């Protein structure tokens, strides 16, 4: 059974619409570690050894956050700077994360069609996530394209309920006892997992 951790970053959850509904659902799921960075470290003073211990204990790491300025909120960067130490996460002897899978769960205000050449944001979302992808490579991890919830600005109550269900089923797939980690090598992004037939080992 794959051990899944969600690293969550939202500086103002009390004002959020989408994540405010996703978070209680995830917290209620058994078998998923939910690591709420802004709640744990309101002064950005990250406990490095705690974070490293958590990373070691999990196979799949998902960074859940809204997309701010084509990036994650500030605490994720702080977390990367402090936790991914040379000699531990990368470098000749830095093999603590080797072979683990890492990805993002991202919500965007704009719709998917805005993330195209010639559209408002000019590039597909994956282009903006290049730093995450290469960071994973440097840490000998496997990066999977993210689970994305597009167009949050236009979603109403019922849309949001639907998104909560969709994310739940994706996470159910990941944490199911017969889930094979190598499945992740075959999908183009995490959204696909919902439709993809579950491979049994």
């Amino acid at each position: 059974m794959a051990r899944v951790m969600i690293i969550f970053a939202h500086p103002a959850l009390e004002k959020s619409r989408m994540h405010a509904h996703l978070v209680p659902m995830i917290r209620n799921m058994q078998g998923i570690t939910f690591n709420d960075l802004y709640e744990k470290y309101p002064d950005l003073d990250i406990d490095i050894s705690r974070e490293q211990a958590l990373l070691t204990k999990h196979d799949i790491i998902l960074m859940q956050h809204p997309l701010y300025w084509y990036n994650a909120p500030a605490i994720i960067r702080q977390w990367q700077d402090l936790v991914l130490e040379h000699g531990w996460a990368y470098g000749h002897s830095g093999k603590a994360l080797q072979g683990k899978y890492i990805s993002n769960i991202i919500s965007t205000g704009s719709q998917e069609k805005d993330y195209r050449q010639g559209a408002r944001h000019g590039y597909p979302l994956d282009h903006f996530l290049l730093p995450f992808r290469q960071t994973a490579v440097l840490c000998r991890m496997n990066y999977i394209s993210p689970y994305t919830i597009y167009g949050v600005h236009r979603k109403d109550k019922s849309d949001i309920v639907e998104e909560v269900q969709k994310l739940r089923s994706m996470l159910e797939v990941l944490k199911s006892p017969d889930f094979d980690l190598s499945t992740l090598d075959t999908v183009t992004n995490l959204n696909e997992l919902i439709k993809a037939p579950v491979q049994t080992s």
Partner: protein
Amino acid sequence: MDQHSLLFQSMVYLAAAILFVPLAKKMGLGAVLGYLLAGVIIGPSVTGFIGKEGEDIMHFAEFGVVMMLFLIGMELEPTLLWRLRSAILGLGGLQVLISSAAIAGLAMLLGVKLNAALAIGMIMSLSSTAIVLQTLNEKGWMSTAAGQSSFAVLLFQDIAVIPMLAIFPLLAVHAVQTEAAHSASIRDNLPAWGQTLVVLGAVATIVIGGRYLVKPIMHIIARTRVRELFTATALLMVVAIAVLMNLVGLSSALGAFLGGVVLANSEYRHELESDIEPFKGLLLGLFFIAVGASIDFSLIREEPWIIFGLVLGLMAVKALALFCLGKIFKLSTDQNLLFSLALCDIGEFAFVLLSLSEQSRILDDKMTGMLTAVVAISMAMTPLLMLFYEKLVQPRFTINETTEREQDQIEEHNPVIIAGFGRFGSITGRFLRANGVNCTILDMDSDRVDALHNLGIKVYYGDASRYDLLAAAGAEKAKVLIVAMDDYEKTTEVVKMVKRYFPHLQMLVRAKDSQDSFELMDLGVLHIYRETVDTSLRLGVDALNMLGMRAYHNHRAARTFLRQDELSLKSLSAARDNKKEFVSALKDRIAEMEQLISADKIKTWLDEGEGWDSSSIRDEVKGEPE
């Protein structure tokens, strides 16, 4: 002397000092020269305000030298002594030996008897600690190689005075019937072993008393909280040592020095220093005035050539000896020149030794008078020589190597002084210490000082609102003063005093509440810390956390609240002046609280223009076509 003439005399001395010392300082000659000059003017040679009784005053004022040695002893921390050991013993020892021998030899060539020549050699080998150190400090040369070497030599000389004081009576031709000074000694009627025993006993009394008696006594005195008792105790200590030493026939200066060394590491050191310092200063000043008054100008008029020849000859011999030593101890040429010029004068101890020589009939009156004039003139030359060095010699040496060797510190000078080491200051102090910042800590609670002392933390007992105590704690060179005392009245006293005398010090001041803060703002304090604000807010944050509100929001809300609170405090402070006459203090506080609370529109601050609030962009997007 009847009472009227005593008052009149005091007036003359004080007025002369107040008139001439600032004048001399203004002309760059230093305080010592000012006193000497004042003495010359009021002395018999010029205006004649004081006559022969000046000599009585000189003997009385010699007690200033005893105090000076007590203070020098207290400055002699063993670590400092150890670091400078080779310079002190080697350079200092050789300087005294060579200069004494050379001058004594020359004196004998001029037909002086052996014992007198030896006395002259020793007297003239000494340099003026007061003038040299002060001049070097003024010019900022203290930390140069020459400055350090000079300090080492002066230190050795100060110590060498003590055996000299002991040797001089031995040089006396008619030692048995010297003056009344010895009549009180209980040593005289004892056999040799008894004398040794008495002397050892006296020294042991000072050491043991200093170690084990002073602390409990000071502790008891501190508890009475009567300030002047401290001064009385400090004076009593020095006087008692002097009496004890006289009783066994030793020099009181030696005893005072020993007492000082014993107390060097005591936590009451700064307090004792600041108590004795003014007396020492005044008495030394008086001493210098008396010396100035005793310069016999008729002698100079009679034999100007001999006297000036002696001044130049002595200084040249000393400078030459110093220069050779500087070469041996590898001083560079420019530093060596400074070192030689600085120390070639003859010091204030010469006056003491000269009067002693006269008392014990080693030197006759005429010789003493002439040499006193020589010493005074040579002292007057020192600032001029320094000026000469600065303007003409130093510019010739383009490579100035003052920066290479000089990391050695002469005294313990910490960048931070903490006044008050109670529940507030102790946390700040521990935090700074944990981050490698050394602090000089002052506290007024003698029980606490003792308790901390037992824990191995060096805390000095003393009242930080006193100028001299802060000066002794190194306020001149410190960067930051943390005022964390429990007593708010004292806090304001410290602030006022520091603003006036140490304006360079940045002050971080603890305040109890907003009322204190207002007053501190009025005093111009920039960094004010209300003692409970941060903790109250931290508690508030935790309460919000427990209620399930987001931790990061609560954290930022507390920051915002604090910022806003300090802003409104400032505006309230400005408004306060207009009405404070007629509103009672209590009413004032309630009104102030109301205003503060009404200013707490935290909801609106937090909601204003935050990038994480997407409601406006949502509205915008909804207006757009799909």
